[in-house]
């Protein structure tokens, strides 16, 4: 209970917020105590002070990652994150947060989720040794790194997105919500959402920019085949960010019976944390598989970064392992100097977008710059707040790769390994060209193969003139 005039505010114990790093917690990692918060404290003026205190603490902790609050009780990762939303959504967000924490220790829920991930989604996904690609990067003296793919492309619907969609749909059902909404750009997240709604018998409405609907007619059809309603958004530039705004508007209006399935680790708290935790199964499996395969940990983790969900899914498990290097690869589109790219962490500035403080691509007036990437999934002007945090703390490194480099990698990996990567994933694969020559012999690289590229073959063929 917040006492007037003092800085102390009621918050759950440290173990609940910072140590709830994954859902399938063993008892020792479960929150040791969780006490419900009173409603009144959420608008106390003392928040700001405490946030800064937390940010200070994190900075003071320096490189001791275990002292970092990821996130703290206000959903902040250092100064990033938070809940910049209209008042009407605050209750829904805290309800979501409460449900999420309680389900972390709910055995029934965990069992049901694990069963669905196994039988419906097809987990666990293999950790595949890319022999021919490894050979490709072998230096003349026979030395070179060893490259492994974490095969999220083998999941049902062909990408990592389903991990989160499935868990959120289950969560929504637990909350008694009958209606699901989501926004989508190219349609991948929309298809994943429509898929899980069909599976769980939930009503599904997808908001999509009218422009995107034209370009992605096949995905629109898919969503409708799966029983979802696809609503075209004509305002603004009729693309992803407008669809997102429309979805948020819908949620505000129908918050009682509606759950908003956000597709990435962006948005207001608790979404960045929740989506990360739902994808964390990727990293958890990787740890186990690496141990089995070579009796150790990966040396380097590489993943593409759009909103950041697949990267967080792989990285999260290893953040506290200081010797594991983490590399995120963004889209440099036509080049970082062209103004047509989506390299948020390289060229962006800090601001608030879609409910969270994070890096974002904005002009001098603070207007959002329309990003560009050949891959729709990376075509986002923002980035998850936790990535902004990891970048600032120096825990993860971020680079970028152009459309052209991504297309080259797309072709190279298809030809060498017989696996067609999504164009998004191709960005991470392209970065190997620069990374591998710098790695010592035998260094083990695990790359998150976040999606398959069937959807991109037609695009790529046009460019590559195959």
């Amino acid at each position: 209970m917040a006492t007037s005039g003092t800085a102390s505010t009621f918050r759950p114990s440290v173990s609940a917020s910072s140590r709830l790093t994954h859902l399938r917690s063993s008892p020792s990692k479960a929150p040791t105590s969780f006490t419900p918060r009173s409603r009144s404290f959420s608008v106390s003026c003392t928040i700001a002070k405490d946030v800064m205190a937390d940010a200070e603490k994190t900075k003071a902790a320096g490189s001791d990652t275990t002292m970092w609050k990821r996130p703290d009780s206000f959903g902040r990762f250092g100064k990033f994150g938070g809940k910049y939303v209209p008042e009407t959504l605050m209750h829904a967000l805290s309800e979501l947060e409460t449900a999420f924490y309680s389900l972390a220790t709910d055995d029934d829920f965990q069992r049901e989720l694990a069963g669905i991930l196994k039988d419906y989604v097809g987990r666990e996904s293999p950790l595949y040794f890319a022999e021919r690609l490894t050979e490709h990067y072998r230096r003349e003296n026979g030395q070179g790194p060893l490259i492994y793919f974490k095969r999220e492309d083998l999941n049902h619907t062909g990408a990592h997105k389903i991990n989160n969609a499935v868990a959120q749909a289950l969560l929504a059902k637990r909350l008694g919500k009958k209606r699901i909404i989501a926004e989508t750009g190219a349609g991948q997240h929309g298809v994943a959402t429509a898929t899980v709604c069909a599976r769980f018998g939930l009503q599904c409405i997808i908001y999509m920019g009218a422009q995107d609907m034209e370009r992605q007619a096949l995905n629109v059809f898919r969503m409708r085949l799966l029983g979802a309603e696809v609503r075209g958004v004509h305002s603004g530039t009729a693309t992803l960010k407008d669809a997102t705004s429309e979805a948020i508007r819908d949620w505000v209006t129908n918050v009682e019976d509606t759950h908003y399935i956000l597709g990435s680790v962006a948005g207001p708290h608790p979404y960045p944390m929740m989506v990360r935790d739902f994808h964390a199964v990727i990293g958890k499996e990787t740890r186990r598989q690496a141990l089995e395969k070579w009796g150790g940990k990966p040396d380097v983790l590489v993943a593409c970064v759009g909103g950041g969900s697949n990267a967080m899914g792989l990285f999260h498990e290893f953040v506290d392992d200081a010797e594991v290097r983490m590399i995120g690869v963004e889209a440099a589109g036509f080049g970082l100097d062209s103004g047509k790219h989506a390299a948020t962490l390289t060229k962006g500035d800090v601001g608030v977008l879609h409910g969270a403080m994070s890096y974002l691509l904005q002009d001098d007036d603070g207007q959002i710059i329309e990003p560009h990437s050949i891959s729709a999934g990376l075509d986002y002007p923002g980035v998850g707040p936790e990535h902004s945090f990891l970048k600032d703390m120096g825990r993860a490194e971020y680079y970028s790769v152009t459309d052209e480099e991504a297309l080259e990698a797309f072709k190279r990996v298809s030809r060498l390994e017989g696996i067609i990567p999504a164009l998004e994933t191709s960005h991470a694969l392209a970065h190997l060209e620069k990374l591998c020559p710098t790695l010592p012999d035998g260094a083990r690289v695990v790359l998150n193969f976040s999606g398959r590229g069937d959807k991109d073959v037609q695009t790529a063929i046009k460019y590559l003139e195959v």
Partner: protein
Amino acid sequence: MSSTKIFQVQGQPLPRVPVRNHGMINSVVCGVHIISYNRVSNVHNRTSGPSLGYVPTRTNEIPFLRGDRNGRFGRFGGKFVPETLMSCLRDLEDEFNFVLSDQEFQVELTAALRDYVGRETPLYFAERLTQHYKTIARTTGDGPEIYLKREDLSHGGSHKINNALAQAMIARRLGSSRVVAATGAGQHGVATAAACAKLSLECTVFMGSTDIEKQSSNVFSMKMLGAQVKSVEGTFQDASSEAIRNWVEKLETTYYLSGTVVGPHPSPLMVREFQSVIGKETRRQANQRWGGKPDVLVACVGSGSNALGLFHEFVGDEDVRLVGIEAAGLGLDSGKHSATLAVGDVGVYHGSMSYLLQDDQGQILRPHSIGVGLEYPGVGPEISFLKESGRAEFYTATDQEAIQACMLLSRLEGIIPALETAHALAFLDKLVPTLHDGAKVVLNCSGRGDKDIKTLIQRGMPSSLC
């Protein structure tokens, strides 16, 4: 799970067991559980090599004539090929027999199936589909339970890769530098192209011009994977003939990778063996799941590879019903269908004796189905045998029924099946009401329907979806 194998000295033929009036012989031992008979000891005596040791028995064994040394299944099968091919086929047979018991090959194949293909595929309980049939039947009992064997989750999106990968490995062992294949829907083409890319083999795929148009996304994928795609006027049957011609021209360097259980011995046997992993996993999973066996197995039948892949393991289990569904196209009376077993006659085609669609003059008819992969005027000889011996039952489903089934599964389970698979799903409408409560139906979900989205949009889809 270890299977007992007859150890084969390289180059030596498999032991021949005398045939009496199409009576009973042991099933050819090809890496599966050996059926135990009195006559097993005969086989022991003739084998050169270490003795078998423990031979596991199966209950209620009714021996079936399933593949003798000349590749005959009863009166079906055989090697109806020009003399030039005989020695080549013999070499292939020898190599095949060798690899079945070669530890190195088996270990490499198992690892590739696990890490590259993504096996084992789940046995998924289709809860909403099961409920759907219960609701229709207005039953108060438990109703039958429907399980889907998720071959759609395999790399490439169908079961085809199980066989393509194993055969590509054999091709490499035989020292072939190039691989040719023929494909209908493109799935086998994609699987072959992928396996060849992974094993650095040159790959040429022949595809009918009509099929190229209908399944263009698969064509793009093949090209992306580095394969040459050659268009042949017509459909799969024409592409097959052309591929065989191409193979014969360059016998020295070329390996013909057959995608299904047709063709001269040893193709039907080989492809069935490599696909039988489906049934083997199913037995284990069913046992784990409900402590028993499936009651009914259902699969679509084009040439029969996915069906045999599921059925083979259970042929000796009398209490397991085997149901195959062919394509009735526009109706059996329309002349536009692919229901070889329903209305065909026995003849020789593409090197083996089997049922096939022929006119009074013995000319091959042109089949039709909306499921391009089912559009073949013949059928595997082993399938013909299973029909004639009464071990398996075969029915048909029309284009329209398949489309309806496709829509139903998409809406109820969030899985968009391939149109071929949809034929098997369509039959559930007729099958399920006849089954007792608690009957366990395992349906082979042989492929995903991404390749069919364009077809679905063009044909017979309700306008509300477009």
